[in-house]
């Protein structure tokens, strides 16, 4: 760590041509503009401050954020309940008749809760079960691979910076692009089937069989997201003081022992953050799959958000009440997951 930091210091102080000298007239101009803005704002706001006093200026500072927050997050959160208990296909609340528990009843009327075919809202239950399976497998795989990658990157080998960027690159790609890239690779006449055929196998219907499609949805979202968690775990690894490892090796600890009794416990707080973030992300899976399989084949890759979207918005269904009720279920699941994780995190800290 230390030698590379020094090397980069030297690089920035090297005289001669650099991006910074190229842009210096621009930054100078920008700073002039910025000073102008500061003076204008000051000219307007100073009298206001004289009226309100220093402390009340805080309200002015929070106001814009609070306003947007209240209108587009807080109010909708409350309205969501209203929608969940009203029916009809009208969007405006005043035109919606009160139906009580009917929407929730529709979602939860099942002959047998493990068999979606016996449910009134069978697609909802398929989506729920699909999402559960997806979250468990995707999060497990993502965390495992991110941890291995972070450990590999943490070894301080030559070219670490390049490898770090390479692992991070897919994170930047949009879900639609990721979906199209993989759809192209996995189609009937695609690269993977060509490889399989050249090795003597049979072509696989990757996107047309339910099991394959579900598996590939997991694989491509691990591919697209693991770089982000790798980066966060790597930062966590680098925050572990090196002296601990030196002390352990003096005491004759094996690498596996020091991994188990130094790395893992010291990494737990970071790991905790990564698990929380990845679960919340996984529960919301939508855009990638929407462009990848469109929820199919059949309903094999229909997940919760897609259910909400299709019931509420696509095919002129406009069953806003049902969609809102499903949203409530999802919000409740998220709340429950977060609470469990917080509780586990607390307990972990306590011991």
């Amino acid at each position, binding site marked *: 760590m230390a030698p590379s930091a020094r090397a980069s210091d030297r690089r920035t102080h090297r005289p001669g041509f650099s991006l910074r000298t190229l842009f210096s007239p621009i930054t100078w101009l920008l700073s002039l503009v910025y000073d102008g803005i500061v003076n204008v704002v000051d000219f307007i706001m100073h009298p206001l401050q004289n009226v309100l006093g220093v402390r009340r200026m805080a309200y002015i500072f929070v106001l814009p954020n609070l306003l947007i927050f209240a209108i587009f997050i807080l109010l909708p959160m409350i309205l969501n309940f209203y929608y969940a208990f009203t029916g009809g296909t009208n969007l405006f609340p005043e035109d919606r008749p009160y139906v009580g528990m009917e929407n929730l009843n529709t979602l939860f009327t099942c002959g047998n809760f493990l068999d979606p075919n016996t449910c009134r809202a069978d697609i909802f239950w398929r989506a729920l079960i699909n999402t559960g399976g997806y979250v468990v497998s995707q999060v497990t795989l993502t965390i495992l691979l991110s941890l291995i990658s972070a450990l590999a990157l943490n070894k301080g080998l030559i070219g670490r910076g390049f490898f770090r960027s390479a692992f991070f690159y897919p994170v930047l790609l949009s879900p639609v692009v990721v979906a199209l890239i993989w759809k192209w690779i996995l189609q009937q006449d695609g690269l993977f089937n060509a490889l399989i055929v050249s090795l003597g196998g049979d072509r696989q219907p990757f996107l047309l069989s339910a099991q394959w499609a579900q598996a590939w949805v997991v694989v491509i979202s691990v591919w697209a997201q693991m770089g982000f968690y790798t980066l966060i775990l790597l930062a966590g690894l680098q925050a572990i003081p090196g002296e601990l490892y030196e002390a352990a090796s003096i005491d004759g600890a094996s690498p596996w022992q020091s991994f188990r009794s130094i790395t893992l416990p010291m990494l737990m707080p970071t790991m905790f953050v990564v698990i929380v973030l990845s679960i919340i992300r996984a529960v919301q899976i939508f855009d990638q799959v929407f462009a990848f399989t469109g929820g199919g084949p059949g309903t094999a890759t229909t997940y919760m958000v897609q259910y909400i979207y299709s019931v509420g918005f696509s095919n002129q269904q406009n069953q806003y009440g049902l969609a809102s009720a499903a949203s409530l279920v999802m919000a409740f699941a998220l*709340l429950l997951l977060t609470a469990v994780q917080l509780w586990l995190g607390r307990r972990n800290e306590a011991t």
Partner: protein
Amino acid sequence: MRTVLDFLTNTRGRKRLTYSDLLTYLYLMLGTLLMFGPVVWLVLSSFKSQTEILSFPPRLLPYRQETMAVEGYDEPLALYNVTFDDGTTRQLAQVRRVGIEAQMVDPANPTEVIRVNINQRAPLEYIYFGLENYEEGITSFDFLLYLWNSVIVTFFATILTLLINSMAAFALSKYQFRGRDTIMFMTIGTLMVPLSVILIPVFLVITRIGWNNNLLGVIIPAAATPTGVFLLRQYMLTIPDELIDSARIDGASEWRIYLQIILPLARPALAVLAIFSIMWRWNDFLWPLIVLSRSELFTLQIGLRTFQGELNVEWNLVLAMTVLTLLPITLVFAFLQKYITSGIATTGMK
């Protein structure tokens, strides 16, 4: 020989490469291949002609068939290497193909037609990166318009997010005022509330305001990010209060303090939030999909998805447009990757 080996196996003059180091390299290289491979495959495929796109098995590089103008034929004819039964090979041009038989001529003697079994001929090809897919794609896919919409949304949304989040974070970290704890509690409480959970009521609010089919309806609702407020507040707490107090004694107004002391000092955290915001907005899909239904307002992501849906499997055009869509963000990353990765690594975990 030994010195070469020593050089190759020395890492920064410390010690020899160990067995586990080699294994690590192997893993990292395999990982790099898996991360870049699919994108490279996409880019290479986007230069292939439509017939080559449809052929199986696919080849790594894009090829074109060699053609030649032959006397007596209006169109240039495709050239093939033909192996005859006696083992000789000749270069012939194909006039037409009938079933498993190809009618071919010798370019030097175009009047005599030679009939050949199609298994005896191999096309004469050269590597060629054709731009037809891009040209044809751009005429049916309004790339520049979608790009413009995406840039507008990303730019203004990021500026707005940075501004209002940092203002709120300043107030929440440096002032004592009534309601502060409530606001902080709500901010943390909604960190975990994704837009997809409140989709329908937000759509109602947008419709009431009249922002359906308006880029404002995409930009404004997600601007007050709890994540941003939280991240910036945590960072601003580390800025010493004495700086602010001494500026006040010097007669600076609160806005001057915010603009000229707090914002410049919070630059690292602002940069991270800017990266996040750009990533969120550029890649945003679900919300623009609901708000925008007129195609002249589509962002790149919505446009690309619709384009792919309409053409179903005209892969050559879809591939070219996908490359164009991932190009801007790839270029930005290529230049700024060091700052992006280290920025997210240092602040992203707070």
